């Protein structure tokens, strides 16, 4: 307990409604941090042998799932889902479970560092007062337009604080980016919603309410938008309606983890999703005897099937099933939109939903609720916007770059040459918790706390019917000499004086968060209200956030969608290779999991490979080329090349190879570094009309190297003797 608050005060605050729930308020708002106490001095609520549970928010991705952390004598022992939280309802994904291996990771940045030479592992430890001075100087010695902030997709309170700060000093607004948003093609989804529905919101797909889901490469059971809530939707699709099992069809060139759960998997040629969607619309319109909407008028069913290299009868049959479904739903996936024609594909699929009449209805398409403290949905930067940002850096227009929560040297396509751009930035300051590639190239590393040691909130973008502000609180006291980045920036703002200081008159991070929460006190839509901010904060901590009790999803309208000529065609590909390249997000590692050893040791759901990168290749095609399992091949795209062992994957088109994203770190700690390869090295600098990267729009060559490396995998080595059935 902090000396600022007595135990009696703490219990008064913590016990507000505490009897009804297992999750305790961490500490009263006046006490900033939980502290570890020696065994003999245990606080009276902490009985020997009993655990204390704290509600907080997961930071492994931006979905904003609520967690309840079991702690025991000051240590976090186990992650459990928050049962009351509307996003995940008590459930977690593997990355949420293993977030503790981030907290206790042996490779964390333990102290603020000054790096004399970029890229060198030797940093000189500093004290935090000096760090505050460095940040203050960076803010005051440069023109406001020479200061840039690059932030990740979490946490939102930091983004809000930096937004307020840059506004006060007249600097450019912070830029947010994360590889997941690139792989989800979020910008395209939002742009298509603007075009078709007239609202730039993030669509929300009611998988659980549907009785037929047709997905064009949407990996909704994997890290895509909100994995846990979508998996709950999948459950309800199958068993939510008594005696009626909803069906699920997936169009995708490779059988992903999601496609493996489909009743029917249709391996279409990449880039043909738009023509397929429009052809299905035409078949349904004709079957219903309706006048053909202009959107579908140019579609040619047989041509679409042949372009997609699928059976025309299958297409007609599936379209008929779709047309006859009671509550049909069609979902556009990230890889389908990551093509030169991605925006048309998204428009075609959203228009098909409009034609099926499912907008704003159970099992249909909604617009995600606008989160509290938001006026609208603000998406992270698209790859095109990042390219523009990198261009600004290259010109030398930015004198100091602050980086938090994102690792651009790993998450951006190498062809953008962020590394070169960094050379033209005189000062780079990283707030990384882990020594990632970007932190290694920074002049200063001022490590933020781990998410479980932090205050904060996350505005839930999608995944819940309610409007949700998910709350985070420290569940353990910081293990290392780290400092909350918001605290550091607030201190620097005060030291800088002037407009910044008066715009941010906050003592610390919690006071800043309370200033935001104070606007919500009287919001009667919430499941709790409070007369004053301290009680509100106590409830907010105890329950893990604030959410409304109603359904805040918006029903989109698409009056003119079907009158537009979408003019979709097959996408254009870069390169003249013999294989389509399909990079996909590793279902277990995602973008930031590689430094957690237990995530490395989870078998990939479809291939069971652990600890490394593999290249998926069709076995018949591999036979033709004389390639066996574990043979190392070189993949050459017009933008780069890489080497990795082959996994002969039975469920992938012969003209496609797939490679997971998540490995290939050169830094990021001992469990991640020098392990596998990163497919962003192969990606083009080509964008669709919404500015998303056409990462699935490249064709590559595959060459044998004559070398092999045995992949670690679960399959074939079961049993205590490591018996390999194939040998």
């Amino acid at each position, binding site marked *: 307990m902090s000396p600022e608050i007595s135990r009696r005060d703490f219990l008064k605050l913590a016990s507000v409604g505490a009897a009804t729930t297992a999750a305790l308020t961490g500490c009263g708002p006046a006490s900033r941090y939980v502290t570890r106490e020696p065994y003999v001095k245990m606080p009276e609520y902490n009985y020997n042998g009993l655990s204390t549970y704290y509600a907080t928010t997961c930071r492994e991705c931006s979905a904003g799932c609520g967690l309840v952390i079991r702690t025991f004598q000051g240590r*976090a022992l186990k992650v459990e889902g928050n049962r009351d939280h509307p996003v995940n309802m008590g459930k977690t994904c*593997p*990355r949420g479970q293993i977030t503790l291996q981030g907290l206790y990771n042996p490779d964390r940045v333990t102290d603020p560092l000054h790096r004399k030479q970029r890229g060198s592992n030797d940093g000189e430890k500093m004290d935090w007062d000096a760090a505050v001075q460095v940040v203050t100087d960076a803010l005051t010695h440069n023109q406001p337009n020479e200061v840039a902030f690059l932030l990740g997709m979490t946490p939102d309170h930091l983004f809000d604080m930096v937004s307020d700060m840059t506004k006060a000093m007249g600097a450019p607004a912070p830029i947010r980016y994360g590889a997941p948003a690139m792989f989800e093609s979020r910008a395209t989804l939002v742009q298509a919603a603007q075009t078709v529905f007239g609202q730039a919101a993030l669509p929300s797909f009611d998988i659980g309410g549907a009785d037929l889901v047709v997905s064009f490469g949407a990996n909704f059971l994997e890290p895509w938008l909100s994995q846990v809530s979508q998996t709950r939707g*999948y459950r309800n699709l199958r068993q939510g309606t008594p005696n009626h099992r909803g069906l699920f069809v997936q169009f995708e060139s490779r059988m992903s983890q999601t496609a493996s759960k489909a009743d029917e998997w249709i391996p279409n040629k990449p880039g043909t999703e738009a023509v397929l969607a429009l052809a299905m619309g035409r078949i349904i319109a004709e079957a219903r005897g309706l006048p053909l909407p202009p959107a579908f008028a140019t579609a040619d069913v047989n041509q679409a099937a042949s372009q997609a290299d699928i059976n025309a009868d299958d297409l007609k049959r599936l379209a008929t099933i779709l047309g006859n479904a009671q509550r049909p739903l069609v979902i556009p996936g990230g890889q389908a939109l990551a093509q030169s024609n991605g925006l048309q594909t998204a428009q075609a699929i959203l228009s098909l939903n409009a034609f099926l009449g499912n907008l704003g209805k159970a099992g249909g398409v909604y617009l995600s609720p606008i989160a509290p403290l938001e006026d609208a949905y603000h998406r992270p930067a698209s790859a095109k916007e990042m390219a523009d940002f990198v261009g600004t850096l290259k010109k030398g227009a930015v004198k100091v770059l602050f980086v938090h929560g994102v690792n651009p040297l790993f998450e951006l396509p190498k062809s953008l040459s962020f590394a070169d751009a960094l050379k033209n930035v005189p000062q780079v300051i990283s707030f990384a918790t882990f020594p990632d590639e970007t932190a290694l190239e920074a002049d200063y590393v001022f490590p933020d706390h781990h998410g479980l040691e932090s205050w904060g909130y996350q505005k839930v973008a999608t995944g819940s019917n309610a409007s949700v502000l998910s709350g985070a609180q420290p569940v353990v006291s910081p293990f290392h000499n780290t400092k909350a980045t918001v605290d550091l920036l607030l201190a620097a703002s005060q030291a800088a004086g002037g407009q910044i200081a008066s715009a941010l008159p906050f003592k610390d991070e919690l006071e800043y968060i309370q200033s935001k929460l104070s606007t919500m006190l009287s919001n009667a839509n919430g499941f709790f209200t409070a007369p004053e901010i301290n009680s509100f904060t106590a409830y907010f901590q105890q329950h893990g956030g604030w959410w409304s009790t109603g359904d805040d999803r918006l029903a989109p309208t698409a009056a003119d969608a079907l009158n537009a000529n979408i003019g979709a065609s097959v996408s254009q590909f870069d390169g003249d290779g013999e294989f389509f390249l399909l990079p996909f997000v590793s279902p277990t590692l995602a973008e930031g999991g590689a430094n957690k050893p237990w995530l490395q040791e989870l078998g990939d759901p479809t291939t069971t490979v652990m600890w490394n990168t593999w290249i998926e290749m069709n076995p018949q095609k591999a036979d033709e080329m004389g390639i066996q399992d574990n043979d190392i091949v070189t993949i050459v795209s017009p933008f780069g090349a890489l080497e990795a062992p082959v996994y002969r994957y039975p469920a992938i088109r012969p003209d496609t190879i797939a490679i997971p994203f998540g490995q290939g770190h050169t830094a990021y700690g001992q469990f991640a570094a020098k392990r596998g390869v990163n497919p962003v090295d192969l990606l083009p600098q080509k964008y669709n009309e919404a500015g998303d990267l056409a990462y699935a729009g490249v064709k590559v060559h595959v060459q044998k190297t004559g070398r092999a490396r045995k992949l670690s995998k679960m399959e074939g080595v079961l049993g*205590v003797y490591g018996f390999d059935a194939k040998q």
Partner: protein
Amino acid sequence: MANDLQLPVFTNTSEQEVSGKWGMVIDQDLCTGCQACVAACSMENNVPFVGEEDANYGRSMHWIRIERFWSGTFPEVKMTPYQPMLCQQCHNAPCEPVCPVFASVHSASEDTNLQVYNRCVGTRYCANNCPYQVRVFNWRDYTDARARPWLTSLQNQLSPDVTVRRRGVMEKCTFCIQRIHQAEQVAASENRSIADGDVTPACAQACPADAIVFGRIDDPNSRVSQAALNARGYHQLDELRTTPRITYLHGASNGSNG
């Protein structure tokens, strides 16, 4: 003079007499193969990771793993529904009679298979005899921070409720016995018997698809007993008459049933 050593006696109770106590139902139609159960199990039960090289030898320590199999060739290829595989807590457990030191024994009170770590001498007979291949062996001191210094900080999360195992010891799923015992103690302190839903193992708690149901199979009204009545229900390797405590529900995936 004969000494009565009071050794445990193994009896092969006929299946009709078997009532069982704890059981599980796993719905393969819902399982998405996401590995959340594997992660949750490992975090709950102090299961160590072994690293790339040992994993390559098949020495990884997963107490629960997700299996899937293939049939056919592209484009007619099918994947079987994901099949989470863990100790089936057989009543007639093949692992038990082969243990020379009685480390693999049956619990009379919980009717589960126990592994007594401090009896185990590492003959690995039990794993040899397990038709489900769910027993894992500590080939090295995977939890010894003296040999593996990177573990020092990671060991902060070790649960005090679960033994940390050393080299040469066999281990396996316990149905989260520590959670069962805790729920029993809480119930006893409140002068009641255990209610349905009091015990949730880590895997079932995490499962985002809610594909795993756990509870008392001696209570016909419990959620798990009701779920086990499903017409899709079957036991793994039923022909071996091991009387597993886990009922699987057939799933359909990619058009192939089961």
